[in-house]
Every structure is written in structure tokens, then in C-alpha cells.
């Protein structure tokens, strides 16, 4: 068990800067999720922690010890890969025992540790099988087992569930969560799936183009997105974003349709400023006055319904309602944001305005 500190870490591939200075201190036993779109540098950052990529700038410390120049084997970490990366010519038992044998752990203890991991992961019946004789979910569990038996200071996961089908992914997600709660080992988990991030993380680091957009608990990231990027990336369906302007008194936001939305607190210093206004689809409700939309599409998801509406100026507005649909396409509807549901972002920088 250990902390993992990443201090102003950078990575360049030739002239291309993949990681542009990331700072995060992961607490002992914490589950940190690196979330971001494909190509934003998540794997690169994780692989630098593992020692599989060189570090161009900055420092990484595991358990208080700077590891920049240590080999992967000396960093006391274990990693789970997206494609499992099992040793195809070894049995499940040998796959899990490989790292322990190398570290010179006595045979009896290896047996105990592997058996215990196999029990936790329900792999007991498969110990003599080769990876090719297992299903995808079972292989994933072997990869987890290989990490667990090592009892490392930290777990690193690189999109471990991406190769599984949707149902299995949900199931394994719960298993990983349970496992981490039980073992309490510091974990760094890479994913592009916001649901995985929201359900697994103690804290999420949202990444974009090699930069940390926001670091916070799942609820913080959802309730107070630090930028338009985060606002758009977290939440499904995504947040509505409208162009707006704060009125001359700093008391309300004016949107192109002529709507005037009162601000919870007056912002006299921002009077007249151009802003982006964010409203989550689930925070819009039918009201007497507000946005008037023409319904273009109704998606019935069962538990709730997503309505795609068009505003008078042509913008799309998504509304999420509980339960089965009560409206139909081409209906007209008036919706208004609930109290405290407005997010204001600087129109130029996209950063949140506090």
C-alpha cells in the first residue's frame, strides 16, 4: 500500500507533446480514475507510472520513493491490460504464479496466495487450463488474479473492461469495485467510459489533450464541471450548452430566444459579459414559462425518456423526463431549468465561472 504522486509530469514523442504537465497526489488506498476521450494521453500517463514509458519531465513517486529511473519490476506495481496480456503457453496457475516464482517466494506460499486469489475470483476450477480455453471474462479475472497475488503497492488498470460485452462489463465493474474495497490497494484506472469512472472512482481525473481538466469526486465532477469539456464529457445524454449574455445589471442571463433566466446570485462584475450556459437535460422540467421547444424526437428508454427539442432559433435542447413518454413528436412543450441548475462558463476560455 502506498501513495502515488505525479508531479508536473510531461511526455513528448519527438515534437508532439502527449502529456503537458499533470499533477496529482493519489492517496493511500484511493481509487483514482483517469477519464478522457481516446488519444488524450491516459495510457501514456499510466505507462509512465508503470515504467513502460520514459518520463520526459517531472517526477513520479510511489510510496514516497521517486521511481523515474526504476525498472517496472522494481516499482512494486501490478498492471492489468486491455487485451489481458496473459502468457498463452502457461496454465492459469502458472500465469498467476510467474511473478511470485521470479521473486523467489517459497512454493507453499505461492500455492496459498494463488489459491486464495482463485477463490476470490472464482477461478478455482480453471487453474489447470490454458488462457485459450477460457472465456473473455475469465481471462480478465486471471489478469486480475495475477495482479492480486503480487500484493503490490499499487494496481494499474488500462481499460481492463473494454474488450468485454456490455453485460459482462457491468458485472466485472462491480467485481472490481468490491475487490478494491476489500483489498484497499491504491489503484489507478484508465477508461474512456464515464459510467465506469462514476461508479468506480473515489476521485476522477478528467483528461483532455494531455491536460488535467478537472480532478474531483464523481459528484463534484458531475455537479460542478470545471470546464465545458468536462460538462460535455460527463453525463448522458450530455449537457445542453447555449450561447448567452449576462444582462446589464448582472442579475440574469439572456439567451438568443429572448429568454431571461435569473441568476441565483447577482454578478454585477460580470454585467454584459458573453457566456456559455450549461443545463443538464435531467434538470429541465415542464413549466408554465421558459424555453419553448418543438419536439423532434422522443427516445423511450423505459425508466426515463429523452426528448430532442428544437428552440425557436434552431438550437437543439435535450430534456430528460422520468418514466415513459407523455409527449409525442411535433408536440410543442415549454420547459424551464430547476433551481440552481445553471452552469456558467466563460465563452472564450470554456472555464467555469464561479
Amino acid at each position, binding site marked *: 500500500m502506498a501513495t502515488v504522486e505525479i508531479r508536473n509530469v510531461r511526455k513528448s514523442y519527438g515534437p508532439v507533446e502527449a502529456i503537458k504537465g499533470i499533477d496529482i497526489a493519489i492517496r493511500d488506498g484511493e481509487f483514482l480514475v483517469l477519464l478522457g476521450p481516446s488519444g488524450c494521453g491516459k495510457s501514456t500517463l499510466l505507462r509512465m507510472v*508503470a*515504467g*513502460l514509458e520514459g518520463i520526459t519531465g517531472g517526477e513520479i513517486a510511489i510510496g514516497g520513493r521517486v521511481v523515474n529511473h526504476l*525498472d*517496472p*519490476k522494481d516499482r512494486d*506495481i*501490478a*498492471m492489468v*491490460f*486491455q*487485451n489481458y*496480456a*496473459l*502468457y*498463452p*503457453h502457461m496454465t492459469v496457475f502458472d500465469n498467476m504464479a*510467474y*511473478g511470485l516464482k*521470479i*521473486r523467489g517466494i517459497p512454493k507453499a506460499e505461492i500455492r496459498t496466495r494463488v489459491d486464495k486469489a482463485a477463490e476470490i475470483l472464482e477461478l478455482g476450477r480453471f487453474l489447470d487450463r490454458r488462457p*485459450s480455453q477460457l472465456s473473455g471474462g475469465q481471462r480478465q479475472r486471471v489478469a486480475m488474479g*495475477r495482479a492480486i497475488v*503480487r500484493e503490490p503497492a499499487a494496481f494499474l488498470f488500462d481499460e481492463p473492461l473494454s474488450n468485454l460485452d456490455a453485460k459482462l462489463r457491468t458485472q466485472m465493474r462491480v467485481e472490481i469495485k468490491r475487490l478494491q474495497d476489500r483489498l484497499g490497494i491504491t489503484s489507478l484506472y484508465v477508461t474512456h467510459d464515464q459510467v465506469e469512472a462514476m461508479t468506480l472512482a473515489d476521485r476522477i481525473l478528467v483528461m483532455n489533450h494531455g491536460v488535467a481538466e478537472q480532478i474531483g469526486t464523481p459528484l463534484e465532477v458531475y455537479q460542478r464541471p470545471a470546464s465545458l469539456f468536462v460538462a460535455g464529457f460527463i453525463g448522458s445524454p450530455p449537457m445542453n450548452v447555449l450561447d448567452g449574455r449576462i444582462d446589464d445589471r448582472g442579475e440574469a442571463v439572456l439567451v438568443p430566444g429572448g429568454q431571461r433566466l435569473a441568476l441565483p446570485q447577482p454578478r454585477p462584475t460580470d454585467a454584459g459579459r458573453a457566456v456559455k450556459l450549461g443545463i443538464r437535460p435531467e434538470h429541465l422540467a415542464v413549466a408554465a414559462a421558459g424555453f419553448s421547444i418543438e419536439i423532434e424526437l422522443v427516445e423511450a428508454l423505459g425508466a426515463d425518456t429523452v426528448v430532442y427539442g428544437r428552440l425557436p432559433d434552431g438550437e437543439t435542447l435535450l430534456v430528460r423526463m422520468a418514466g415513459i413518454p407523455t409527449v409525442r413528436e411535433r408536440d410543442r412543450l415549454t420547459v424551464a431549468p430547476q433551481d440552481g441548475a445553471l452552469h456558467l462558463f466563460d465563452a472564450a476560455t470554456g472555464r467555469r465561472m464561479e
Partner: protein
Amino acid sequence: MQRRVTFDNRLLPYLLLAPQVAVTLVFFIWPAAQAIWQSVHLQDAFGIRSEFVWFENFTHVLSDPNYLDTLKVTVVFSVAVTVLAMGVALLLAVLADSKIKGARAYKTLLIWPYALAPAVAAVLWMFIFNPDIGSFGRALRALGYDWDYRLNGGQALAMVIMAASWKQVSYNFIFFLAGLQAIPRSVMEAASIDGAGPVRRFLTITFPLLSPTTFFLLVVDMVYAFFETFGTIHALTQGGPGKATETLIFRVYQDGVVNNDLGGSSAQSVILMVIVIALTAVQFRFVERKVHYA
């Protein structure tokens, strides 16, 4: 899932198979049959009459003490060529597989020798190792080493082994490289995180995962060393000095074509055929068990 292809024309399947069958018949079955036929006959010096002599040719060949010497040379030669060609190719493939600058040019260069005819390759070797005109040969002599493969049997054998291996290295290299590149990078990374250094990774991960390739090349290289090195030996040493580089295949040619003993030569080629078939069978039976097919 199995797919069955059906032909409307009954003749077409046979027609499509015909070229392959014809090639096998003309270049393998027919000469093999002829060899077997001749191996139990004795021909007169002019090749006009021949007489059925049962296994006389075989007893004759096998009771010749020279034949046993040739067999010994062949074993040394074949084992050395196979080990050397595979070992060097594997080493080069491992180097080419690692991230190095100019890997492409390096790979292309390594493949070239395979495109060379054995006799041309042998001439190249001669120009390098000839004690009078070869650059390396002269250098050796200048250094005071008594290099002359035309007189020293051990040196001659070493040279044909090197020349024959060199030609096969290219072929082995391509297969080893393909085999190495088929191993997922993440598997090697997992091993290094698990604590394995480069040598251990090679021994416990790379080598076992390469075993299908290694096994295939083992069979191919043995057959190469037994049969296809005739051109190299013929051009370089003609089996000499004495009989120091005379392998079974070279002796078949020597006795049959040069000494005109068709019966004895045929008996030898039948023996050679049996040896190679037996070797291949043994390899499949015992070595293949240890092979892991992913």
C-alpha cells in the same frame, strides 16, 4: 464453421489438382521410383543390360567403411548447419525485432542471401576465403595462420558448414522475425512488470511462444542440410580434401555420375531418403509434443 465448395463440372477439381500432381510425379515420385528400381539392379558399364541383384547394392554400400565416414561427416555437417543457421537467425531476428534505427534496411539486407543461387554464393565464399586470392584467406595467412581449406580437411568442413548455414540464415530469419512480431508487446510488458529481466523473458516467454516456428525450421533445415547443400559443396570443395567434406548427397552424385555406379548410387539415395523420412518422423513424434501452438 465448415464450408463445402461444390463444383458443377466433375472434371474441374481434377483439372485444378493436375499441375500439383504432375509436378510431384515428374520431380519426386518418378525419380524416387527410378532410384528404388535401380537400387536393386546391376547395370553394365554401358547401361545397356541390367540384372536384378536383390539387395546386393545395399550390402555393398553399407559394408564400405568409407560410407560410414561419409555418414559421420554428414551428421556433423547437418547438425552444425542446422544449429548455426537457426542460432544466428534467431539472434538476428531478436535484434531486428527490438527498436533499432535502420531496422528496415537491416531486414532487407538479411533477406538477400536467400535469393542467391548456391553456386553463386559458393563463388562469393571462395573469393573471400581462397588462400591465394580471397581477401579474408590472405589476411589469415598474413597473420601467420596456416589457412588452406584445399589441404586441411577440418578447415574445409568448417567453411562449407559456414557457407551452407549462411544461405539458410535468411530463410530462418524471416520466419523467426514473423514469429517474434506475432507475440503481443503487452505480454512482454506484463512479464517485465512481473519481474522478469531480458534473459528470463526470452527463455520463459519468447522462446516457448516461438516453438512452432522453431520446430518447423528444424525440420526444414535438416532436410536442407541433407539434400540441398550439394551445390555449395560441389562449388567449394568437391567433397575434398580427401573425403573431408563428402556428405551423403555429395557421394550419391560422386558414385553415380562420376564413377558411373548407378546401382550403388541409387541404393545410397534410397538410404538417404529413408534417413530423412525417419528423422522427420522422429521430430514430429518427439519434438512436436513440446511445441505450444497458441
